[in-house]
């Protein structure tokens, strides 16, 4: 007799647990409002990324097409994967001194691991992370980006670069 009671207990206990689970899924079936899925390409206009989102490294330019990079190479040294290449040139100033200036700032997005070291160590805050995230391209070469805009030059009155390494 005992065995029959345990048998029935097991049976109904089991069915009860199954029904409990079905209640949970049933609840969500009739509550489609709780869906949090974002309709991505459609919501592109309203989509707001977080400010700190590490989308890609970029170099802000002001309205006069001036950037802050002094071509000190600290970012290049600190980058663990060699995704930054700073090419500098010697420019003769009006007073006859030659000065190192940024020629091209090459950023290889495909090699970047978004560790943030370049931005952390930059003494001039010349580069920042911007939250662009749509990086898909058909050609890998397009992922090698030049961050300084053509014709841009150094913003004057910047701090002297601190020579670290």
């Amino acid at each position: 007799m005992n065995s029959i009671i345990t048998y029935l207990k097991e049976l109904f206990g089991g069915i009860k647990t199954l029904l409990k689970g079905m209640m949970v899924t049933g609840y969500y079936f009739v509550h489609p409002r709780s869906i949090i899925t974002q309709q991505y390409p459609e919501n592109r206009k309203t989509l707001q990324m977080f400010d700190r989102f590490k989308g890609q490294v970029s170099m802000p330019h002001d309205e006069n097409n001036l950037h802050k990079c002094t071509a000190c190479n600290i970012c290049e040294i600190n980058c663990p994967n060699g995704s930054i290449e700073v090419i500098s040139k010697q420019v003769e100033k009006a007073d006859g001194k030659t000065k190192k200036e940024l020629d091209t700032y090459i950023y290889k997005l495909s090699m970047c691991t978004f560790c943030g070291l370049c931005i952390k160590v930059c003494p001039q805050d010349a580069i920042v992370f911007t939250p662009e995230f749509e990086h898909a391209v058909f050609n890998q070469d397009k992922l090698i980006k030049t961050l300084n805009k053509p014709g841009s030059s150094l913003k004057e009155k910047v701090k002297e670069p601190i020579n670290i390494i």
Partner: protein
Amino acid sequence: MNNEQLKEKIRSIDSNIEITDGPQYVTLSVSPADLHKTALMLKTQADLSFDYLFCLTGNDLTDACSVVYHLESFKHRHCIVLTVKTANRENAVLDSVCDIWITADFHEREVYDLVGITFTNHPDMRRIFLNEEDWVGYPLRKDYTDNNIVLR
């Protein structure tokens, strides 16, 4: 037991073991011949009972290879480090401890694979990550070269 007591205890058991103070843990250095014996002692000695091997590292020291065993006791909650240096680098051979701590089975295979120390009495001394058939050399050795290494 704290570090001082540990040192005393070990000294009282075996005076041949070289004991030094590391930054965190007491470090024991033994010769390859004494390795298995000492390891067994550390595990079985009731006051020590180091039954949990939480890390096993193989190092290439350019003149020799060394293996570092980090041990903890589940019962007494004290930790100790056991180091052993092989006689030479080209033919680095040590005794396996995987009969004492079974976790050493995989870790020793890893050390064999990457550093190139062969463990005797290991039941299954094969490479664990790299390909058994065609991989040449031991990557974590300092003189290892590979055409595919990308330097920054």
